[in-house]
């Protein structure tokens, strides 16, 4: 399986997660979002970039509880709650945002 990004085919797994993290470019997120019928605004990118930085530092995609806490601390309390995150990513912030960010599926996420 693969997705078309900038004229290249990038491999994804059966759930649509990018097979190789290092092949990620911002357009990956745009293409994936389009397939889900979603437009990405500034707030989406803020979260996607946050997840990529978190992964860079800790080598894992954070669990939702950890994510909301970390977001609240970094971007402000009004954003550090699951309501805000689910509004941005209705299919689930961890699942959807992590996927767009090119990260593997969060540990413990079913």
């Amino acid at each position, binding site marked *: 399986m693969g997705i078309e990004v900038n004229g290249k085919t990038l491999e994804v797994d059966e759930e649509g997660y990018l097979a190789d993290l290092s092949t990620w470019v911002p357009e990956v997120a745009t293409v994936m979002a389009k397939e889900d019928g979603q437009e990405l605004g500034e707030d989406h990118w803020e979260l996607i970039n946050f997840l990529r930085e978190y992964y860079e530092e800790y080598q894992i995609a954070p669990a939702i509880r950890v994510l909301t806490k970390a977001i609240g601390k970094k971007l402000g309390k009004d954003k550090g709650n699951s309501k805000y995150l689910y509004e941005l990513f209705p299919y689930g912030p961890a699942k959807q945002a992590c996927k767009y960010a090119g990260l593997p599926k969060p*540990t*413990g996420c079913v």
Partner: protein
Amino acid sequence: MSEIKKFMYVNRKAPYGTVYALESLEVVLIGAAFDQDVSLAFVDDGVYQIMNGQNTTGIGMKNFSSTYKALGDYEVTKLYVEKESLEARGLTVDDLMELTWEDEDDDYEEKPSIRLVSSAELAEVMADQDVVLSF
């Protein structure tokens, strides 16, 4: 909510070469979502799991050592390291990663997660657990 139980994950093996260390870490991260009282113990070669400056380039495996630094975010703040195991390997606490957690109730002050204990002290902590899982 059901009663909070005390879970201890005992790590005895070197980080690479077998899958035990990584599996244990993943179980800890998953388990931490369930609001239990979680602690980790590092004994025998398990102390190598949290050593400083790990480099896996030569063995072609993912270096997951930085994930231990996320444990604080998961509210896993008690990492017991057995003194005798360190000494037997010529190591001291300075050879281990600096692992901390932020105390929300104390103005987010960073506090050390590693607790150096003797074998006898660790046995006492272990005896006090509801569940001990060995990896």
